[in-house]
């Protein structure tokens, strides 16, 4: 079983991916598994522990359940202010 999710990238993850957004059909059940799949595809060259993840514009745990149509954002260490 697969789900279609929409991924948005920011800052150096966006530059690394080469796209701002992408739709991705995945058998991943969680954001953690999705990260592993996308990292293999884009070679983000970082470790997951440096990142946070948001699902549908709210911070999420890495082992939440993905649903069809979810918006996923991986969040690099922030530097606002």
């Amino acid at each position, binding site marked *: 079983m697969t789900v279609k999710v929409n991924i948005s990238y920011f800052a150096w993850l966006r530059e*690394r991916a080469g796209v701002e957004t992408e739709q991705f059909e995945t058998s991943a059940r969680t954001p953690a598994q999705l990260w592993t799949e996308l990292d293999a595809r884009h070679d983000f060259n970082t470790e997951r522990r440096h990142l946070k993840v948001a699902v549908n514009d*709210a911070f999420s745990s890495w082992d939440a359940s993905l649903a069809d149509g979810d918006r996923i954002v991986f969040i690099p260490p922030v530097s*606002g*202010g």
Partner: protein
Amino acid sequence: MFEITSKQVDVDALRRGLMSADCGGYTAFEGWVRDHHKGRAVSGLHYEAYADLATAEGLRILAEAEDRFGPVRMACVHRIGDLEVGELAVWVGAAAPHRDEAFKACRYVIDELKQRLPIWKKEHYIEGESAWVDCERCRAAGHGKHHHDHDHAEDRPAARKAEGESA
């Protein structure tokens, strides 16, 4: 009130918006674009935000300040896009019946937003290079002056070993 904007910030209007007959103390924090960072001359900054989440998190931080120090009237604006040296990048204002709560609430908001808002800054250097600030792989590799549009592959061995968290 919390806002992410690509337009210049009207500080006077924000200040007026916080004025209230029951407030006797007002303070504001302004973050400006500085012309140097870690010994390198900076010509400007580019800010990028995950606006939906940054706005939600910004409102959450203001609500926390109200819970801790309220009653306090607060507003916060963060710029995105390209900013020149000297431009205002972030503004936090707090008005309260007495000054202590205004100072504390203002300090709380700027400290929390720097750690929590999904906003990233890229520095442009006088020499023409640019780099994302707090790139953890650069820090992990101990590259204090390592700030250019780099291929991060070279940082990998050190980054894999590092235990540091983001600042």
